[in-house]
């Protein structure tokens, strides 16, 4: 039941930010909403209710590292897509390992020390 609630809240928040991004221009400004804290808003609210504020704060600490990884990933995607040689979906999916590698490397390096 809790997973279904998560799915619905996550879907609604992500769709709302995506819709906002769709109708805005210029595209560089609309792109800001591609990195909106949509999943975080849905997940942190539920984490606070079910597991407490301390638990959610630990999640937020890791999120800083996730955001750094996302920044590098998005910059790589931008560089590749600007050349216009690859399909957008193929390029963005092929570069996802950048996020995983950097995110988990940062978590491994700083995850236990920043508390």
């Amino acid at each position, binding site marked *: 039941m809790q997973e279904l609630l998560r799915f619905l809240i996550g*879907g609604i928040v992500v769709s709302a930010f995506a819709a906002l991004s769709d109708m805005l221009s*210029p595209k560089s400004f609309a792109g800001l909403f*591609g*990195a909106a804290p949509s999943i975080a808003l849905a997940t942190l609210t539920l984490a606070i209710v079910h597991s407490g504020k301390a638990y959610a704060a630990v999640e937020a600490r890791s999120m*800083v590292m*996730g955001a750094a990884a*996302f920044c590098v990933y998005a910059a790589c*995607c931008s560089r590749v897509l600007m050349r216009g040689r690859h399909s957008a979906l193929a390029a963005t999916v092929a570069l996802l390992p950048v996020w995983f590698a950097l995110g988990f490397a940062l978590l491994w390096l700083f995850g236990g020390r920043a508390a």
Partner: protein
Amino acid sequence: MSIQARPQKLKQSKWWELALRFGFGGLCTVIAGLVAKKFGAAAGGLFLAFPAIFPSGASLIASHEKERKHRAGMHGTHRGCQLAGVDAAGATMGCVGLGAFAVVVWQELPRHNAALVIAAASIAWAAVSFAVWWVWRKRAIVRRRK
């Protein structure tokens, strides 16, 4: 170019594109929760900044632009990709704001009211993202004039 909101652009999206985003968003939220449950809050927290709908968003931007150019009798593949690249540049700047959101929640949540902290973090996200974009935009305009 100034910032503009065109609600009529929402009509360009097909029902399956909206469903895809809703599904991806919901799925990533569930995965973040399951990872936290299985591997702890630290690992789960990483997924709060997962580029969940980024690939599908970039793909939709490219395909919409391609369709638009096709209607005008042009090819549009190259232009579509470039537009998705500009959107990705925006997301890169938005990530600075995303980091600010996370720092505010991490530092302030244990000591203050949760609703206030989430609201303050959202304001921090918007303020930092817009400020970074504004500086980038100003610099781009100056560079173009030189």
